[in-house]
């Protein structure tokens, strides 16, 4: 269970929140003119990023507000929380990659131990 910082209420346990999917997918205004394929992009297609990912949460048991967060889905570390309508903050940190410094894109299991350089990272 994460600690999530609601932009309105502050730090609370994840159990008070519900994950509400990828952020910044806005509903097309001119959908009539869209092809089925374009519409399917909006409806179904997701980045599902491994790494820094913008997502929505709702503080379901608290203030009932939706808000956005940036989280590294490879590590589950939250990097920012911001309100709906706000731009995601620039994260100029090096993407912290996975807990053990592995590159985003690899598994986590190979990095349970610090390996000697000769073992090849």
């Amino acid at each position, binding site marked *: 269970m994460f600690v999530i910082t609601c932009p309105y209420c502050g730090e609370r346990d994840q159990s008070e929140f519900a994950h509400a999917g990828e952020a910044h997918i806005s509903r097309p205004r001119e959908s009539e003119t869209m092809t089925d394929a374009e519409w*399917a992009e909006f409806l179904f297609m997701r980045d599902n990023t491994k790494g820094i990912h913008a997502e929505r949460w709702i503080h379901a048991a608290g203030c009932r507000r939706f808000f956005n967060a940036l989280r590294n889905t490879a590590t589950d570390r939250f990097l920012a929380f911001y309100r709906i309508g706000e731009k995601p903050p620039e994260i100029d940190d090096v993407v912290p990659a996975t807990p053990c410094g592995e590159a985003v894109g690899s598994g986590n299991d*190979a990095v349970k131990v610090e390996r000697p350089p000769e073992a090849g990272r």
Partner: protein
Amino acid sequence: MGNYSLFSIVREGLRGNTGWTPAWRDPDPKPSYDAVIIGGGGHGLATAYYLAKIHGMKNIAVVEKGWIGGGNSGRNTTIIRSNYLYDASAAIYEHALKLWEGLSQELNYNIMMSHRGVLNLAHDDNEARQLKRRVEANRLNGVDAEYLGPKEIKEFCPILNTSPDIRYPVIGATLQRRGGTNRHDAVCWGYARAADALGVDIIQNCEVTEILTERGQVTGLRTSRGDIRTEKVASVTAGHTSVIAGMVGVRLPIESHPLQALVSEPLKPVNPCVVMSNAVHVYCSQSDKGELVIGAGIDGHTSYTQRGSLDIIEHQMAAIVELFPIFSRLRMMRQWGGIVDVCPDASPIISKTEIGGFYVNGGWGTGGWKATPGSGHAFADLVANDAPNAIAAPFTLERFVTGDLVAEHGAAAVAH
């Protein structure tokens, strides 16, 4: 590859087990292959096996970033059934179940396929109605299925709490007697051994980091063990499907969530079958070694960390104790998580893509283990022929454009 049999066991036993040879080779990647399968899970290994066996493609490789069977295949609760609602699903899962039935023999590797029966419980009228609908559809599709009332349920699984006074009373259930469980690791190893024997290179510790293309056509792979030339790349990477597809700019209707499971300490046989309840998210069977194997619900958030939250497990345990009150004093020995690739209609994708030579098999979510042989079989066909066969056709990416979904979640929220 030596043959496995009682005879070979006795022979080897007598000479100190010194004569066993590796179940599969440990080759370095060759510079080029006719096809490369990314992902050494059950589905990927099965795909390779059927490509080699049925389609005669022997110059192929499976590349796995870690150890084979270490993804969801190595962490699933191994529930096997084919009693799905829709024709398309019933077809592929039943195809798989038929293959499972003879797989130990075919692979010469005992996958401990146990047809001990799967119960899906209904706790209210609406669920009961849906289950009956499914039983009827199954019957007409030639899939074995029965609907049981509380008394028959109690006979089949005496330890279940069928009292009418509980929060989620058990008012009915479907039973698929041919359903059951098997030994997940053995399936992966068995496929690997059999594929290897047909000449397939199984390359572990080899992570794909880039897919190389030219003019919309796959030309090769960049891996942690060097570049590989190939014109066919088949991704079977479950939780990482979006990551792999992202390498060629293909977006998919998939989100990757943690899904957890746990085992109890080893116990003498107490649960004779597989029990599943969608309403309370209970999935419980007992392994041949004795642990109760219990699947939990999915975590609401997406994640690639292969771990989930405790509160999911807490709810899980409350539900288990509700349905099996005699389990309360038993202990959880180990919990773990996998990364499941969930599609909006809870059905998989077996599809070509807009990139020539790039094929995707994924989106099996919480319930793809049972499909392993069927999925591999159908996917091999697609990769070999560049066109889906009848079983795979309903599962192409097209359906998200047309809207012709295979909406199994209507019938089962979680489809272990």
